[in-house]
């Protein structure tokens, strides 16, 4: 009898914690998204779908949603595309120092994003930062990126990429080198170029992991960007660097519009759920490549 209860007993602490701090709060946030509230007043006013309608029609949030997709594109470029290429190069093209590269790439991943944000703010300072000074020597100047629409998103994404590159690299590397060595050699013997080996063989054979990293980049990347936004721009200039995550924080803890924040959070969740469903469909169909 006790033996039968054991697994439940072992699972209980984790499940209780997740219920209390993740699942129940999620349901409560859904509930809050139908109310107008300011977190302090004793009464909440039921407003139906107003919060959602407001978000989807309001110019600020429209801009934020657009920014979110801009972030996603830049993050994917930095953290999936480039990482994938690096994983392939280290896995199959270069022959030496692989261990060193793995260890070195990962170093920034252990550093606080607040530290990263501060360091990059100084390094990329348009007047006195080292990049600006070197740029000046060659006759070009650094734009005031934290006040420039578009560019600010690219720089903030860069800071996040600095941090997550190592982790993504390690996971992709593991999957890329999981492709049997003989298959790569067979292609080499057939005079297939490295570029073609990457596109025709390694990419499809490691696609399940690739897709997982893609999802992770979006889901985690958007949350990671919160830190540099909060530290450096507070969403500015004029919401130009805000995304769904930061905006939800802003609505809740800066302007105290709990309902708006909750609705933004639920929309974010919906996007993530759709992405996850896509992943499951994709992985179900493809996973055997990596195991066979």
């Amino acid at each position, binding site marked *: 009898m006790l033996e039968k209860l054991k697994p439940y007993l072992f699972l209980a602490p984790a499940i209780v914690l997740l219920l209390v701090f993740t699942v129940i709060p999620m349901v409560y946030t859904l509930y809050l998204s139908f109310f107008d509230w300011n977190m302090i007043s004793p009464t909440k006013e039921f407003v139906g779908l107003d919060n959602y309608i407001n978000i989807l029609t309001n110019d600020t949030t429209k801009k934020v949603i657009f920014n979110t997709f801009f972030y996603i594109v830049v993050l994917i470029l930095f953290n999936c595309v480039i990482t994938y290429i690096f994983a392939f190069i280290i896995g199959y093209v270069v022959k030496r120092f692989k261990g060193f590269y793995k260890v070195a790439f990962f170093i920034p991943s252990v550093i606080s994003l607040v530290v990263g944000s501060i360091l990059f703010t100084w390094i990329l300072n348009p007047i006195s930062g080292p990049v600006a000074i070197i740029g000046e020597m060659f006759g070009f100047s650094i734009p005031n990126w934290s006040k420039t629409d578009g560019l600010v998103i690219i720089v903030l994404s860069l800071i996040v990429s600095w941090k997550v590159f190592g982790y993504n690299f390690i996971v992709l590397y593991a999957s890329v080198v999981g492709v*049997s060595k*003989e*298959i790569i*050699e*067979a*292609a*080499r*013997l*057939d*005079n*297939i*170029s490295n570029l*073609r080996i990457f596109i*025709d*063989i390694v990419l*499809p*054979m490691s696609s399940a992991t690739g897709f997982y990293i893609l999802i992770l980049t979006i889901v985690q990347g958007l949350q990671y960007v919160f830190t540099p936004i909060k530290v450096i721009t507070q969403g500015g200039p004029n919401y130009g660097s805000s995304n769904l995550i930061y905006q939800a924080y802003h609505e809740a803890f800066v302007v105290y519009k709990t309902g708006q924040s909750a609705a933004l959070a639920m929309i974010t969740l919906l996007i993530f759920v759709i992405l996850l469903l896509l992943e499951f469909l994709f992985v179900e169909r493809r996973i*055997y*490549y990596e195991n*066979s």
Partner: protein
Amino acid sequence: MGTIKLESINKSYKDTKVIENLNLTINKGERLVLLGPSGCGKSTLLRIIAGLEEINSGSIQFEDKEMSHLSAGERNVAMVFQNYALYPHMTVEKNITYALKRNKVPKAEINKRLEKALDMLELQEYRTRLPKDLSGGQRQRVALARAIVKQTEYFLLDEPLSNLDAKLRVSARQSLLHLHEEFKHTFVYVTHDQVEAMALGDRIVVLKKGEIQMLDTPENIYFKPVNVFTAQFIGSPPMNIFKASLEDKSLKIGETVIHLPENLRVRLLDYEKNEIYLGIRPEHMSISTTGLYDMTFNFVENYGSQYGVCLDFNRQECITVSNEKVKDKMVKVNFDLNHLHLFDIDTEENLIYS
């Protein structure tokens, strides 16, 4: 086109030498088998020919053209891997045609070669399947087809049959022979299986620790092995090697004097050491009531068609084959005098053939 010439090849991984000063010429259109135990460097040698391993020094020539500085892709060789290395996400058809397409072979030509290969290897009905939906034998044939369509002179095979079950292996061996008849490629074939080597090779290279022990036809390797290693590596059960003593030019195992044929006795005249190895294959020993040598019976192994009889000859173990099950505690054994071998006690070299 077709000969492969290796000169003073040296290859080492860090401090371990894998191949040392190896010279080998492979003739156009022949089937050469690289045979040896695991770790002897046979696969490494094949991969060196293919360009998958760099060499530390030496020269590799394909028909007088230096190849050692060329990458694998530039050498234009076809190779069949032990695990076939099929692209798991491509159908049989795509697996076969992929390299041709990428190397810009005209489409009509690709189709022609594909159809021919599919016909030859009886793969027509599987052309749209993925490798995971094929049996081991079918996969092996796809790997062969992929190699054939390259239409190169050089065909390298790295233990291509070792993942097949025993029955399939025999038929796959035969289709390999047919294939060679058809195309007359220069075949370089790696295996650790001596039966496969004997069946397939025009010539066999016996390798041990990166050094060539013997390079010759299967017959010579079997009947005239140059040293103890080759003698024992080929043949199953392996050749019996007795340690014998020499006194006054008569050869003794324990206290028993062994009668030698004239050609061996002559050879002993200038052999000055006190001990020597005497070698004889199990099939060249026979149990008979008129046998000259008394041996103790140990146990018997059943080989199906025959029995392997394990004996003790003056405290040295040996094995012979017999059609009948032996039951006596003591047996009398004869040696076939035409098939006795003498090996130097130190160098282990055959005193007659090396």
